[in-house]
């Protein structure tokens, strides 16, 4: 009994230390984002103009946002980003699920070799194959269209890997029972495997959406025309045009970040749960 107050005090101090550490890490994480927002909504010289730093603007202004919208086709770039990343998401989730089913539940010659070939492409940066890829895309007549970005990024080796990991955890008896009932592979896939794969689909969809929305290196090469730019490419272009006009750059960076951040924060639970069940723990 006499030990209890001591234990409680230690537990109390532990909680305080833990909260302190997390708050510090949180502060370090959020402060660059705070500066982005503060600079985006203040006049050009207000925060960074003097010799010392002002921590917040005296007045909030929409001047930067208005200037960005007036000088750049923001709506078109936004639309391009939405269109491209949604199509990539649908293609990449579909192809990953289909291939994941084959690699986890079906036996076929060459499966190990084929799987390793896909895995090997994970370590291949697109910059290595850019020149050759550009030629192929041009020869196919895709250059100057959205498809120049969509098709080369639509097959995801990481998605395939996750899908295989997850689907390996689906009990074989379920699949075999469906097969004995006379269901074909496509029916088994659609009726048995897909309904059990909802957490996986959530992870695949979000990972694909995130990487496509933020993709930079390949779209930079594949989208030469201003009107086809996605938001990250537009952001770099805008920064090149406005130089040290941090207000404009940060206002546009916000347009790039906010939509996907909102989606992410809303779905983070499903995301963590999906990963926890993908057999990667």
């Amino acid at each position: 009994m006499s030990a209890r107050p001591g234990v409680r005090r230690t537990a109390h101090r532990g909680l305080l230390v833990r909260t302190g550490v997390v708050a510090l890490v949180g502060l370090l994480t959020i402060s660059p984002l705070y500066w982005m927002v503060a600079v985006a909504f203040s006049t050009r010289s207000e925060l960074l103009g003097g010799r010392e730093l002002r921590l917040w603007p005296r007045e909030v202004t929409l001047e930067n946002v208005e200037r960005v919208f007036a000088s750049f086709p923001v709506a078109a770039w936004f639309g391009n980003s939405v269109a491209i990343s949604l199509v990539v998401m649908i293609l990449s989730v579909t192809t990953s699920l289909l291939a994941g089913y084959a690699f986890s539940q079906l036996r076929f010659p060459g499966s190990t070799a084929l799987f390793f070939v896909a895995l090997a492409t994970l370590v291949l940066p697109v910059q290595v194959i850019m020149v050759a890829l550009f030629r192929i895309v041009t020869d196919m007549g895709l250059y100057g269209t959205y498809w120049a970005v969509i098709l080369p990024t639509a097959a995801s080796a990481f998605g395939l890997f996750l899908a295989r990991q997850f689907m390996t955890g689906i009990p074989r008896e379920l699949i075999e029972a469906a097969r004995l009932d006379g269901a074909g592979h496509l029916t088994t896939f659609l009726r048995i495997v897909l309904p059990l794969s909802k957490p996986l689909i959530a992870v695949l969809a979000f990972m694909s959406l995130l990487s496509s929305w933020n993709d930079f290196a390949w779209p930079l090469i594949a989208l030469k025309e201003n009107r086809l730019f996605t938001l990250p490419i537009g952001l770099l272009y805008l920064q090149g045009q406005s130089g040290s006009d941090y207000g404009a750059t940060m206002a546009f960076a916000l347009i790039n970040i906010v939509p996907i951040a909102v989606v992410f924060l809303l779905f983070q639970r499903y995301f963590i749960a999906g990963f926890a069940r993908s057999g990667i723990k």
Partner: protein
Amino acid sequence: MRSPTPRRPGRRREALAAYGFIAPNYALLLVFVLVPLVGALVVSLQRTDGFGAGEFAGLENYARLGSDTLFWRALGNTVLFTLIVTPVSMLFGLVAATLLNTALPARPLFRSLLILPMAVSGVATALIGVLVFDQNSGVLNKLLGTFGLPAITWQSDAGPAFLSIVLVTVWWRTGFNMLIYLAGLQGIGPDLHEAARLDGAGTLQRFRHVTVPLLGPTTFFLTVLNVIYSFQVFDIVFVLTGGGPAGATSVLVTYAYETGFVTRDQGYAAAIGMILFLFALVFAAAQWRASRTKDVAE
């Protein structure tokens, strides 16, 4: 139960179905990754003139690598970058995940805060980095000035420039590591911690002897992923420092990109790319084997 004779057509049908299922994925992979990869290999064996035409030159491009100091510098930077960013961002991720897995006030808020950088694009991250690290009008130097401290030459000196890309990348990457560690921690029941606590283990001891060993597979997965991503670092360096000053932050991918698209020495750029790919492949294979032997040993 089933007799062996009808099994064979069933197996053949199964294989055919499997090829059908993987066809969409592998068709895209073939046309847009594997064919260009072979193309890059061919180009790496050519002397190119900048307009796409080239003649066979054997291993000439690869031989040039040996005496190219910029290449060795980029290689050294890539390895150093990987060796710093991978453990640091994983350690931060692990500590944050462990803390967020305990009873804390405002836990969902903190979790959301910490994973937020993950959603920020590489270009936006790098531009926020420019805002923070600009040595003339950036936030950090103004902040140092406010406290009467001297400004740091983040752009004109090699060390600070390298530090800035490391710090920005750690900021960007920690959230993902934390998220995956959180997913891993969900698989560890509270009873093991309870048992260790009853045996008198303190918080740090429980972290070291219960949490860390049980997260082994997660750590393995994250190590592979982080090393792969670090080897491929591009957006941050390209936008934040452009590889400067004087190649101090140049990494293999930015060097290959510059060589191929700015200098337009495409044969040589392809050779750099091949070496980079080979490096990453060998590392990944070594990791894979190490984990396999460990699994067998256990």
